[in-house]
C-alpha cells in the first residue's frame, strides 16, 4: 500500500530527526548561566572559605591517589568542617559543599543509607574526619539498622578495637544511643569536658520510635563533644545541625542549588581504616 509505505517512511525520518536533535542538544557547547553580581560574589567567597576551612583530608578529592596521604593529627579541640561534595551552578561557578561538624554541630540527611548518594556522603564524611583528626581523639560509633553491609569497609576499625561492633538492628541502635547518652552524662559531670575524646555517632536510618530520643540527644551533644551523622531523618529541624535533603537532587542547608556528592571507593575507605588501626597499634606499643 503506497499510503502506508510513505506514512511509515515519514515516521522513520521523523524519528531519525528527533534522535539527531537530541544528539545536537548534547553536543552543543554549554554557556555559563546568568548569575546576578551578588550571587557570583558569594559563590567566589564560598569557594575561598571552603578552601581555607577544609585543608588536606577534609577537602581533597578522595581517590586511590589520596589514600597514601599522611594521616592528620589535628588538635582535639579544633573545630573541623568537612566537604561532602561540590555545589555546581554551571559554567565556572562552583564551590565545595561543606558541613561544619566536629566541635560545632551535626549532619542530618533526610534519606537513608540505601540511597547511593547518602552512602557516599556518610563514607566520605567519616573517612575525611577520622583521617584528619585521628582515632585517639575521635571515636566513631556505627549503627546500620538497615541490616546491610554498607559499612563493611570500616570493619578494620572494629577489629582494632577502635570502635564497638557495628550495630545492625534496633537493639544495636538502642545500645549505641545508650553509650552516647552516657558520654553526654560524663561530659556534663566534668567542669571542662574538652579533654574528653569526641564521639562520632553514625546512624544510617532512624526508626520513628527513636526520633525523639535522637533529637533530645542532639540538642545536648555538641557541648558534650558528641557529634551525630544521621541518615533517614524525618523528625524535622534540629538545632546546631546542617540538614541535607536527598531526592532527585542533593541540597545543602536548604540552598536551592544541586550538590554533586563526593564518591569514595571502597578500598580507599578500608585502606584509611587499616592505616588508622595500624597507627593506633603503634601508639600502644605493638608492631605497626
Amino acid at each position, binding site marked *: *500500500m*503506497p*499510503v*502506508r*509505505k*510513505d*506514512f*511509515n*517512511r*515519514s*515516521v*522513520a*525520518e*521523523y*524519528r*531519525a*530527526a*528527533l*534522535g*539527531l*536533535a*537530541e*544528539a*545536537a*542538544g548534547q*553536543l*552543543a*557547547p*554549554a*554557556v555559563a*548561566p*546568568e*548569575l*546576578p553580581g*551578588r*550571587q557570583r560574589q*558569594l*559563590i567566589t*567567597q*564560598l569557594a*575561598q*572559605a*571552603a578552601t*581555607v*576551612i577544609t585543608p588536606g583530608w577534609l577537602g581533597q578529592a578522595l581517590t586511590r591517589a589520596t589514600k597514601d596521604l599522611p594521616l592528620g593529627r589535628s588538635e582535639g579541640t579544633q*573545630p573541623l*568542617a568537612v566537604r561532602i561534595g561540590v555545589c555546581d*551552578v*554551571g*559554567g565556572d*561557578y562552583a564551590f565545595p559543599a*561543606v558541613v*561544619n561538624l566536629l566541635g*560545632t554541630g551535626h549532619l542530618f540527611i533526610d534519606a537513608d543509607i540505601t540511597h547511593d548518594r547518602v552512602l557516599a556522603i556518610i563514607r566520605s564524611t567519616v573517612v575525611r574526619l577520622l583521617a584528619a583528626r585521628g582515632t585517639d581523639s575521635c571515636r566513631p560509633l556505627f549503627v546500620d539498622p538497615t541490616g546491610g553491609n554498607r559499612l563493611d569497609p570500616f570493619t578494620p576499625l572494629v577489629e582494632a578495637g577502635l570502635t564497638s561492633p557495628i550495630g545492625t538492628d534496633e537493639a544495636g541502635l538502642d545500645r549505641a544511643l545508650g553509650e552516647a547518652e552516657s558520654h553526654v552524662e560524663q561530659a556534663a559531670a566534668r567542669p571542662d569536658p574538652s579533654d574528653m575524646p569526641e564521639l562520632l555517632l553514625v546512624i544510617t536510618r532512624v526508626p520513628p520510635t527513636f526520633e525523639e530520643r535522637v533529637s533530645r540527644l542532639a540538642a545536648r551533644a555538641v557541648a558534650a563533644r558528641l557529634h551525630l551523622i544521621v541518615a533517614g531523618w524525618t523528625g524535622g529541624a534540629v538545632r546546631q545541625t546542617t540538614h541535607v535533603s536527598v531526592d532527585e537532587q542533593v541540597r*545543602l*542547608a*536548604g*540552598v*536551592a*542549588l544541586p550538590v554533586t556528592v563526593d564518591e569514595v571507593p571502597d578500598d580507599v575507605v578500608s585502606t584509611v581504616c587499616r592505616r588508622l588501626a595500624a597507627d593506633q597499634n603503634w601508639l600502644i606499643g605493638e608492631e605497626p
Partner: protein
Amino acid sequence: MSSADYERLLSELATELTATGAPRGGGTTMDPALSALDDRLLSHQADLLHSCPKLGITPPRLTATAPTTPPPDAEAAIRQAHRHLDTAGSALMQAMRWATMPRFLPKSRTRTRHLAIYALCAVVAVGIHAMVILQNGVMGAALGFAIAPLSAFAVGYLLIGRLGRPWIRTTAKPMKLNRYPKYGLILCVSIDLFAALAWLLGGG
C-alpha cells in the same frame, strides 16, 4: 575565613536565591538553532498525528532513534535533522496524495480501473468454475456457466465501491461513482465464454 564565615555566606546565598530565583543554567550557544529545529519537529509530529485518523492508521510510536553514525558536532546534527525532516515532510505529503486517489490502480483512468476489477473477478470465477468442472464433470457444473460470470459481475460491482474510492474524501459531497455495469457484465460474460471456448478448442 572560618567555618562561621562559610555558614554566613551560605545563608546569604540561600536568601539571595530565594529572592532572585535559581540561576538560569543549562543554556547552549546553539539555542536559537535548536529551538527552530524543535519547532519543526513539533509541527511535523502534529501533522503525523492528525493524519492518522484520516488514513485509518493506528498512531505510531514517535520516539527518537539513535543516529547510526554519531554526528561530529551539534551543527552537523542539526543540519542532518533538518534534512530528515524535509524527507519526512515530503513522504507525508506523498502519503496524503496517495490517500486522495483510489486504492486500486490509482494512476489509471476510471474506466480502465473498474474494468480491470471486473476482469480480475471474472478470471477468479473462471478458475473456481474450472475446479468444479474437474471434480464433477461438465454436466455436473453446467449451471456454473451462468453463475460464474454473474457472480463475478456482482462481486466486481461491490468491489469497485471499495477499491474505486480514495482513502480520504476531498469534498464533503457524497462521491458519485460510475461503475460501468454494462461494460462490466459484457466483460465478465466474454471472459467466461473465451475460457470455455479455449477449453473446447484445447480438446477438453
